[in-house]
């Protein structure tokens, strides 16, 4: 019901208006003593106040009324002529001679205006609230995007929710790290009993949020981190009567925890949407942060492994070489006859021991080479040279060995071979390995041929299984081929020949006294030259090993 207060010392006037407004079902109240006016207004909070303008203190009174009741409509009752000075003080004016209808319609118009204004102000407030929340959401999202630190993400989420909803208390269970943590952000301090109750509540919440799953912690071992805004005051158990909301923080199968929020005033549906949005938004960056952390941990593990590998190689090269040197030296001294005459059978066993020392030393060198190349620590010395020179060196170095086995070692170098850039020492190592292998697997009276020629990548004919080795190559290359008439290699073993792990198990290479690492090393060395190595073989007929290096 509309409350009307009529202020006048004029009893007749009071009565006249009383008749108008009681008839129209208004709550009409009149005061003739000005001194009581303010107290009455404070107590009643009327919608419309009529002021009899026939009072010399009307301006003062009007000011006081505005102070205690700013929303009331103030209507001055004046003589037919309005004092211009009064115009700015009132919402409306009625004159003494106005008809009853005119007075009621003036009141109604002003009431409608008042309602409209109130509605406008309220929607303005809603709009401002939404804008503020949107702002909080936006700035929180920006913060989420700026970090991969899980604890910081949780902190930003709580701050964002506080900014948007201004809570009394939030309890955030974070499962982001190995140990579950309950983060309590509270306006006021909490007693130990209240904390215990909150912990208990967290366990119950865990059950409901994660579908009956048991909490991976209990009241006694749940770690608490407390942030209290005003530590001088304390919450009581009435806290649990506050309005509250709960949101799960998870993405797919990954659960990061949940957040419960308490507020003295009830939450609106918009608050709930905002709260859930922020809790959902933090899950994705938390997932990224988790993956990032795993990546860092894996990297650290890999680095450690790499370090262990280097240390191992260091041990292999140093700790094995030193005792090997002592063995070799002793054998040398014994074999030289400096310690007395060496019998024929003693010499047989001495040379057996020597051979195996050489072999062991070769294995250590190969291992060291391979790991150096793999670690990218092998130094190459690329210089312009002619590959035929390398072929010449290898032939002169190995022709004695070949001859002693009754093998014919010949070379067919392409004439006018152009120079190109390569590491001569390394390619000599490759070619020596290929020819030594050929000698090992070739019988008496057979021939081994080393040849060189210029080829274009497009015209290289190659066994299908090695096709991937050359598929990215183009342009001109220098090709070297070592052809033997030995025992050959089965097709299924061809690819394995260049695989260090497979070859190390190969009994054939063991029987022939090799380390088995020669070909894998050759492959790595040619990779470093941006070249390729492959082979072609027929069982019991012979093998052809090819390598190419680019012509630059």
């Amino acid at each position: 019901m509309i409350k009307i207060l009529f202020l006048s010392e004029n009893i007749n006037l009071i009565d006249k208006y009383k008749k108008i407004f009681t008839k129209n079902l208004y709550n009409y109240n009149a005061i003739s003593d000005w001194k009581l006016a303010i107290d009455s207004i404070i107590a009643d909070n009327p919608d419309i106040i009529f002021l009899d303008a026939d009072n010399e203190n009307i301006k003062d009174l009007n000011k006081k009324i505005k102070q205690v009741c700013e929303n009331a409509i103030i209507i001055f009752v004046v003589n037919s002529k309005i004092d211009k000075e009064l115009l700015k003080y009132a919402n409306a004016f009625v004159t003494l001679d106005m008809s009853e209808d005119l007075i009621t319609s003036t009141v109604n118009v002003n009431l409608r205006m008042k309602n409209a204004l109130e509605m406008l102000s309220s929607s303005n407030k809603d709009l401002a609230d939404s804008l503020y929340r949107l702002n909080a959401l936006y700035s929180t999202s920006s913060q989420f995007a700026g970090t991969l630190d899980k604890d910081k993400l949780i902190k930003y989420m709580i701050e964002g929710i506080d900014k948007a909803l201004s809570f009394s208390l939030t309890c955030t269970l974070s499962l982001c790290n190995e140990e579950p943590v309950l983060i309590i952000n509270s306006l006021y301090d909490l007693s130990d009993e209240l904390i215990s109750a909150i912990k208990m509540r967290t366990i119950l919440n865990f059950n409901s949020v994660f579908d009956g799953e048991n909490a991976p912690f209990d009241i006694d071992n749940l770690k608490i981190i407390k942030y209290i805004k005003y530590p001088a005051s304390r919450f009581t158990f009435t806290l649990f009567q506050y309005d509250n909301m709960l949101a799960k923080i998870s993405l797919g199968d990954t659960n990061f925890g949940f957040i419960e929020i308490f507020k003295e005033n009830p939450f609106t549906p918009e608050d709930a949407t905002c709260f859930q949005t922020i809790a959902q938004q933090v899950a994705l960056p938390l997932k990224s942060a988790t993956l990032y952390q795993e990546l860092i941990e894996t990297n650290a593990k890999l680095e450690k492994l790499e370090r262990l590998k280097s240390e191992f190689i260091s041990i292999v090269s140093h700790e094995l070489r030193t005792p090997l040197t002592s063995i070799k030296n002793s054998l040398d001294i014994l074999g030289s006859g400096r310690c007395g005459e060496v019998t024929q059978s003693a010499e047989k066993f001495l040379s057996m021991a020597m051979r195996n020392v050489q072999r062991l030393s070769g294995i250590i060198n190969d291992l060291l080479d391979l790991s150096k190349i793999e670690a990218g620590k092998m130094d190459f010395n690329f210089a312009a040279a002619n590959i035929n020179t390398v072929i010449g060196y290898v032939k002169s170095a190995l022709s004695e060995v070949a001859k002693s086995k009754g093998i014919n070692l010949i070379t067919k170098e392409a004439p006018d071979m152009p120079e190109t850039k390569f590491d001569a020492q390394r390619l000599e190592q490759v070619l020596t390995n290929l020819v030594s292998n050929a000698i090992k697997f070739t019988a008496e009276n057979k021939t081994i041929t080393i040849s060189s020629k210029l080829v274009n990548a497009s015209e290289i004919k190659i066994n299908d299984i090695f096709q991937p080795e050359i598929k990215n190559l183009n342009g001109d290359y220098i090709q070297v081929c070592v052809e033997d008439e030995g025992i050959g290699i089965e097709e299924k073993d061809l690819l394995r020949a260049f695989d260090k792990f497979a070859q190390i198990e190969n009994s054939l290479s063991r029987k022939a006294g090799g380390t088995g690492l020669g070909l894998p090393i050759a492959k790595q060395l040619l990779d470093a030259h941006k070249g390729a190595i492959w082979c072609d073989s027929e069982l019991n007929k012979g093998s052809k090993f090819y390598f190419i290096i680019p012509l630059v």
Partner: protein
Amino acid sequence: MKKILIVDDEQDIVESLKFVLETADFACYCAYNGEDGLRLAKEIVPDLIILDVMMPKINGYKISRLLKYDAKYKNIPILMVTARSQDEDKLIGEETGADEYITKPFELDEVVKIVEKYLK
């Protein structure tokens, strides 16, 4: 008789080097760690030093540097023995002043040849 100082923490290696060098008519002095090696080098002022790289207390590189920067000893040829370990590889680029390098395992006859090259 020319004096040769052999410094290596591996006694067996020292033993075999001593044997072949004495057979080749050199007087051998031995030390089994860097500290003793450096002290002995200054005491006896040998005609040549065979020096292992990896040794406890003072490594071969350090000894070589200390001797080569001292006018009194800088003319003594130093034959450095390395096992090509990674730690040594890192040091190889550094200036040590050694005159020759040999890698373990080495040929005893080769060592004798090198020694003779410097002393005869």
